[in-house]
């Protein structure tokens, strides 16, 4: 839902790093986005096309690696992926969990010319 802010962050990180190595063009940005982050890829792409115009990152392709939502049971330490509304542990059926993956939201790498 907050893709505009996310996209501004992506573009500013990419431009800063490309600038540090005096690159002339950013060709690709590799992102890692967790399932729980609520980020919609198409929406980021839409904002990116608008925001990157007139920068060296214009026309860079965005690649989204999605990390699945993984939970760990705080009772028996089973790691599992929940489905929908059922966040209970499939092993001991307790609903005491911690989120261990799915919240990622970072720029993994960029490709520059």
């Amino acid at each position, binding site marked *: 839902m907050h893709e505009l802010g996310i996209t501004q962050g992506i573009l500013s990180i990419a431009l800063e790093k490309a600038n540090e190595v005096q*690159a002339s063009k950013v*060709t690709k940005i590799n992102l890692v986005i967790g399932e729980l982050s609520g980020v919609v890829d198409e929406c980021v792409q839409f904002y990116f096309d608008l925001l990157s115009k007139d920068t060296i990152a214009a026309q860079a392709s965005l690649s989204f690696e999605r990390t699945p939502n993984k939970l760990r049971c705080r009772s028996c330490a089973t790691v599992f992926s929940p489905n929908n509304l059922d*966040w209970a542990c499939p092993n001991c059926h307790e609903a*005491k969990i911690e989120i261990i993956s799915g919240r990622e939201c970072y720029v993994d790498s960029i*490709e*520059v*010319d």
Partner: protein
Amino acid sequence: MGVKVLTILEDILGANAEKARRNQDQLDKHGILTVNVMSSPGAGKTSLLLQTISRLKQKARIGVIEGDVASTIDAENIKKQGVPVIQINIPGGCHLDANMIENALNNLPLGDIDLLLIENVGNLICPAEFALGEHKRVMLLSLPEGDDKPYKYPLMFTEADVVLINKIDLLPYMEFNIPAFHKAVTGLNPKAKILPVSCKTGEGLEDWFSWLLDEMRKMRRGGSVAC
């Protein structure tokens, strides 16, 4: 020059987190306990603020930051209580961020505030992702929203220090399973303090006021109380 791959591994919201840390440093310096209040639209954030101001303004100097997509209705209601208030309008926006709070702090009399209440934009998704520099996060869920919300919006419940179940006076008319809600929240967040309240009748609010006063005492004694 050929194609080069640069490893970055940088948090996309890192710039916001950094600015939030700076906001918190500033708030710590002035000894201002800062609470980020989050909920869906209509859950009762403004009513909670009005009740809190009316009950605590003799005991603490309160300041307010109001976040809304449009209008100054909330800020005007708060202003009538005689406390400093900054209204932030974010047309099309869904949350407050650390930059907006930095600007608001520049316009508040920080030397004259002990407790800063930030009313976030009504939304159960985005505000959980953006640190503002607050010390504590408070989430309101009102009974008509249903007891299944922790499973639908887990991040918000994972992040909260206090979860207030508001509109508890409606319990006789609602199918809201309080024990099931408790189980869902503590399952995600064992540290969350869960308090049933009614901002209309005042039921349960004494526990909320005591929690706030207690946190303010801790802040005065030992500096920052951030989790």
